[in-house]
Structures are given as C-alpha cells and as structure tokens.
C-alpha cells in the first residue's frame, strides 16, 4: 500500500481517571471525506495497533457530528477543537489525539466537563418566567439585538475557550469566557435583565470576571466564533458600574 494512502493516528489513552496515560498508534486506510471521528469508528471495527496488537477500542465522546453539540472536543495535533470538523485531508500526519487537559479524565479521550454546567447554574444562566401557561407574546426585541444574542447563544459548552485559556486551570475556580458570555446573553434579554444584578454579583465573586488575564486565546479557538472578548469587556463594564453602584448608591 502506498505511503500516502495510509493515515497514522497517535492517540493518548488512559484507562481510568487516576491511572497512567500511554500512547498507541494506529494505521488506517485513507478514505475520501474522512474526519477524525470516522477514523475512530474505523478503529472500533478493527482495534489493532500499528504494532499488530489487539487492544480495546478507543473511548471518546461524540454525538451530533455536525459541530453543534460540543461533545467531541479534544486536542488534535496540539490544538483544541471538535473532532467531527477535523478533516483528515487537512491535517498533517501523524494525527495526534489527546484528551482535554483542563478537565478530569474519564477514559481515553473522554473528559468530565461538569464544571462548565455547574458554572451555568452559579450565574443563573436562564430566564425566570412566570410559567409555561399561555400568557401571550414574548417581548418585542430589535432584530439587531436579537442577532447579537444569537451569536452568544450558539455557545455549545464545548470547552475550547477554557482549554486554551491560560487563566483557567484544574486548580482554580475561574469560570472562564463561556460563562461570562452567558451572563452577558441573559443580561441583555429584556426579561433576563430583571436578574442581571444577581448574575453580576456572582461574577464579581471568586473565580469571576476579575480572573480574566486578557490573553484572548478564547476568541481565537472558539469554533462558533462567539465574540467572547467583547462579552468579557461588556461584563467588565457592567461589573464596574455595579461596583460603583454598590460603593456609592447603596
């Protein structure tokens, strides 16, 4: 088989959260329009390493395979991204797959991103409605404002921005760009704004906005191109005003 018709995958594996990581290499036949996920699926069908050793299939997390669910985030050739959009033909070989480093490992390429969802709880990332009963239309919202909110609400809690953030580590409790951006999203909604002060007070606490170091890697790696740094600056303004309000008006 000619060299260019084979794909080599180098995968960092780990059996358990506290066990030692190890590397395995797989050679796979090249297929048109293949991506990292389809290669991992091929491994499932033939879990044999380059050294002809039969191993357990690689465990990873994926669902929609269209880059809207956020599941398959991993580190591919050194950078964080979704595996489903990582087209094989666009990647230099060997293709190196590693799990995210800022979240606890579950197994192989699968990590536990509970921290992100807990942060959404912390900042009350929802709109508190009176009830689901039919009480008529929602608020009138200018299309421009809606378009801005839409950009923010495309966040799929994938964790790219946090993985790439030098300020977000396993040992601290920084909430990171995605959560700050969600605070902005809900604060800009006419109904959500009614709880904006509570959200701001939370984000002005431990692990909140002040921990941002303006490295701005978040916005570079965001697969949805969410204006995260703009959100951070906007929440910077809102928290500054809240601080002044707390100091001089209360």
């Amino acid at each position, binding site marked *: 088989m000619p060299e260019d018709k084979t794909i080599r995958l180098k995968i960092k594996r780990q059996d358990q959260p506290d066990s030692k990581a190890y590397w395995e290499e797989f050679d796979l036949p090249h297929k048109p329009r293949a991506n990292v996920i389809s290669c991992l699926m091929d491994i*499932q069908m033939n879990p044999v390493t380059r050294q002809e050793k039969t191993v357990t299939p690689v465990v990873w997390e994926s669902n929609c395979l*269209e880059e809207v669910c956020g599941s398959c985030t991993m580190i591919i050739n050194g950078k964080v991204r979704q595996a489903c959009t990582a087209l094989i033909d666009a990647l230099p070989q060997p293709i190196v797959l590693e799990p995210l480093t800022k979240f606890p490992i579950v197994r192989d390429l699968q990590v536990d991103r509970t921290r992100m969802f807990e942060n959404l709880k912390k900042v009350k990332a*929802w709109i508190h409605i009176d009830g689901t009963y039919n009480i008529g239309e*929602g608020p009138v919202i200018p299309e421009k404002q809606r378009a801005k909110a*839409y950009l923010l609400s495309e966040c799929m809690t994938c964790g790219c921005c946090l993985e790439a953030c030098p300020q977000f580590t396993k040992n601290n409790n920084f909430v990171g760009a995605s959560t700050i951006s969600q605070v902005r999203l809900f604060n800009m909604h006419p109904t959500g704004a009614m709880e904006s002060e509570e959200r701001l007070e939370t984000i002005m606490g431990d692990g909140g906005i002040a921990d941002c170091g303006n490295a701005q890697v978040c916005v570079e790696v965001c697969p949805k191109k969410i204006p995260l740094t703009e959100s951070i600056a906007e929440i910077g303004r809102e928290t500054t005003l809240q601080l002044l309000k707390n100091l001089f008006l209360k």
Partner: protein
Amino acid sequence: MPKRKPQFIVIGGGLAGLAATMKLCEDKARVTLVSYQPVKRSHSVCAQGGINAAIDTKGEGDSPETHFYDTVKGGDFLAHQPLVRDMCHQAPAIVHLMDRLGVAFNRTPEGHLEFRRFGGTLFSRTAFAGATTGQQLLYALDEQVRRYEHDGQVQKLEWHEYLSAILDSQGVCRGAVLHDLHTGEIFSAKGDAVILATGGPAQVYGKTTGSTVCNGVATTAAYLQGAKYANGEFIQVHPTAIPGQDKLRLMSESARGEGGRIWVPRKKNDDRDPLTIPESERYYFLEENHPRFGNLVPRDVASREIHDVVYNKELGVEGQPMVYLDLTHQSEEFLEHRLGGILDIYAKFTGDNPKKVPMKIFPAVHYSMGGIWTDYESNGSGLIDHQSPRNQMTSIQGLYAAGECDYQFHGANRLGANSLLSCIYTGLMMGPGLIQYSRNLNSHFEDVPSSVFDQARDQWQGRMQSFKQMKGPENPYVLHQELGDILLANVLIVRENSKLEKALTQISDLEIRFKNVQCLDTTHWSNPAPSMIQQLFCQIQLAKIITQGALVRNEFRGAHYKPEYDLNQPKDFDPHEYVEYIEKKQYGEVLESEFPSGHTAYMKRYEECNEQWLKTTIAKHNNNQPEISFEEVNTSLVQPRPRKYD
C-alpha cells in the same frame, strides 16, 4: 401528613424530555432525568430550519386549521386527526412560550417574530432562530430544567443508559433499570411513571442524519417488554444531505425555503463546471414537475424525484447519486443573514463555498414517523383532553412516550419544521395527564415489594455480564454497519417485496451471527462495549419491525413507496374531486361519466386502498418476531383524499 409529590423518570434530554420535565416540575413534581450524555448535547441541536406555528403575521390567511390540514395531508392521512389538530392549535402558544424563554428567534423590522416558508405548505409558517433553531430551542429548555435542577426538583443522571422498564405483577410500570456508563453499575430507579423521550432510531440504518445516540434502543426495549410499536416502516428520507464518512449531515430544507433550486445537467455525465452550464441545459426537475410547490414539495416527494432522476434517468452529478442544490443566484449578504450557519456547515465538511458553487447533495435517512404506540383522549370536539392520563401512554400502563420516539403526529410522512413542534408539544401536553395519573394511582411504587425492583436489576446485571463474556469472532461494530447496509439497500426510498424478503433473510442471518459477537472490552470502568452489544441486539429487532412492516404494507403511502402498488394518479386529477366523489357516493353509485375520464376508476382504487391500508401498523413482539396487525386511524375531521403537490 404532607402531600405526596409525584415522581417521574424521564429518559432522554432532548426537546420532548426537557419540555416534559419543565412542565412536570412546574406542577411540583420531582423528576429524575436520564441521558446518555449531558442533556445539552442531545440530538435536537441538529434541527436547523425551524418550528411551525400558524400565527399568520403576513396576512396570508394562514390558520391552525390550515396547518392541521397541511400536516395530515403531508402525512397522507395516516395520523390521528384530533392529536394533529390539537398540536396545530397549540403551536402559536408554544412558539410564544419559547420566545419568552429567550430563544433568539429571527425578528421582523418591528421586532416581532419572523416566519419563513417550508416544504409542504404555501404559507410562511416557520419561526426560526438563525440556522440552529433546534439548538436554540433545546438550550432554552435546558436552561429551564437547569433552574429546576438548581432548586432541587430535578435530579440529572447524565452518562446513564436506560435498559428497561420495571413492571410489577400487574404489568404496571413502576420504574426503570438504569446503567451508569462510567462505573458500570446497574440499578433500579423508582417512579410513578417512566417517560421515554428517546428520539428516533436512525442508527439502525448506520450512516444517516441522526446523532450517535439516536439508536432506537429504548423503544425497542419497551417493545420487547410487550409494548406495541407502530408504523415502523415509515422512515423519512431527507432529500438533501451532505455526503460524509461518519455521518450524512443535513442540508436544511430552509436552503430551499430561501430560494435554493435543485437541478442536474440535462446531459448524462456532464463534467463541466456547474457554473458554466447554461440555464437551458439544466434540468430543474422539481420546478418542472411541480410548478406550484416547486422546490418546496414535501420530503418524500423530493426524495423520490431525486431517486428517479439519479437512478432511472441516470442524470446524477458526476455519474454519482447526487444532485445540485443551488443558491448561487442569491446575494451573499442575503445568504449570510438567512442561512449563514447552515452554509458554514457545508463549507466546513466539504471545503466548498456554497455561496459561490452549487452544493452537491443526496437523500439520507432522517426521521422515523413511526415509533412506540401511544394513546390519547379526544375531548369530543376534535381536540385533546389535556387532563387525561391516557395521553401519550404506551400500551404498558405507566410507561409513556413523547417526541420522535412516539408515532402519532406525522402519519406517513413528516412536514419540515413539524418535528420540533411535535417534540415540544408532546412534552408539554402530557404533563397534566401525568400528574393526574400519579394522583389516580391506588398504590404507588412505595407499595410495590422491593423484590420487583431487585429482580429487574439482577436480571439486567446478569444479562450485561453475559454480553461481557461473549468471545466470538464477530466485531459488533462491523455487524452494526452491515445491518445498516441491509436496510439502506432494501428498505429505503423505493421498496419492493422481493428485496424486503431478502432483507428479512439477511437480518435473520445477522441475528445468528450476533450470537458470535465479541465483547471488545471487558474492563470495568467507562466501558461502552457491553452496551454496544445490547444496543445492537435491540437494533436487529427494530430492523425486523421496520422491514416486516414494509413488507406487509402493500401500498404506496407517504414515505412508503412501492411502485407496483402506485395507484397512478391521473395527471389532471384534482384532489377535491375525491371529496365530491365521496359526497355523491352517499346518494348511490357514482357514474364514470361524472368525472373526467379515468378519474372515477382512480378514485375507486384510492377508496379501496384506504379501506384496506389507511390503518396504523402495529408490531407486537411474539416469539422473537414482530407480529403485525392493523388499527383504525382517526380520520373524523378531514376526509382523506389523494395527495397532490403540483
């Protein structure tokens, strides 16, 4: 004594599961929400185009009644009419509710909801949020459920798998056996009722537009426990998908809604750059064959037309089973604004810019109209009694279903942007009935002997352990792929009985090989291998339901197309003739001469066909085979008539 709080177990965290959870929590119930993964990642995020509600903001004269008619007509009259009618009447309230929850629906210049056109209707009825309406709706519900989780009313069991319902000695569902996908622990959970909101079965077909979790396993498990499975053979093939190795990504119908045109070169194997092919040498087959609906014919019609052009006329692009979906005549700003996200997907997965070159697309398995059988109670005036505990209950008492995994709303074919509606509608609608069900129970799960729960758990522990010990030569993933290939080759757009019989044989061969499967991983932590085998087992059963149903149903209805049973509608036929024909029939025999030539004969054929086949297919598990029977469809509100999309 404090009042007992109803407790429910919801399986699946997509739109239906989250809507049901939200509604139940609002009524002070406690909910255990079970999902393979964080619910925010559920398959609902994939829905792009929008959600239908006849709010008629553009003075087109749309109304819920028209929406109702379009839906039952789109479904070839196989859907129970009071349910569909109720859904369409609730639709405006649902869209307004979602708007209040913060969904970033596109707006008009005045700041009100914007609506666009979609397939199968002539009205602007589809509300949409950019290119990711499903994602936006799901997030809004996810946020509400997170609020209830924050308040302690919801317990989320993410990374858990539903294995089966727990039935007491009377056959009443009292809980569920669950599988912790990290620790591998198998345990039983108790509840007043279990709600399956587990989505579609796309994975049975292997490569589809479905997500990896759309495996149809939970409903099949219910079927194996004795629940009825309905209309399994009605599988929607979406006409426009992007080819891929791991999945077929959807190209939303909204691409056609915003003016996208489908065509192929008139010349076979024309290898010119599509942009250099002059208009006169392009075959816009949908527009030519359906001048009124054009590119917006329903999905079954579009898929069949593409199938015909590609396989019978051999006009596929580059000789492949592909056609062009062309948006290049629209301005880039317009496309960016209206379809930005959708077109990005195409660019991302193919490397081509659809604003500059026509997209290459082909049909892919997309949606199951069928699913687990569920009940409903009409209120006598053509709508649903929302307080009835019968609503959405499966044939197992206490086991409910909602969303794509039920069968009731789309008949033989679903219209675009109705799925998001039916998911949210069922989730919300069933809430009051569930509360009633819990209140009406004479004995609760607390009164059921613990041996019932322990036995169910032990049985599954044994079963999963036995899967783990399988050491045969067959790779389950390979078997799964082969299963999908069998169905794709034989049970797709065009169905022939010989092929269906062949498929059944192949499936039973596969079932034999299944016994020689190898469990590829026998470790104890976060090991997907035993689950995979269990899922494969269920999918083989489900494949039998689908194929057997397709084999038995000898007619052409909606997505189920059997050419040999095509009634050959005369080209100049007007569906209203049939209504007239039925009226006239009440006064005696209708003469051949009263309608244009050939029409009466056709209508007679149609009437006979409906007599025999306008019925719900019911599959019951019996002796390892689906036993097929038929049930009446409620067509009490609108006279079924031949479909025509000219």
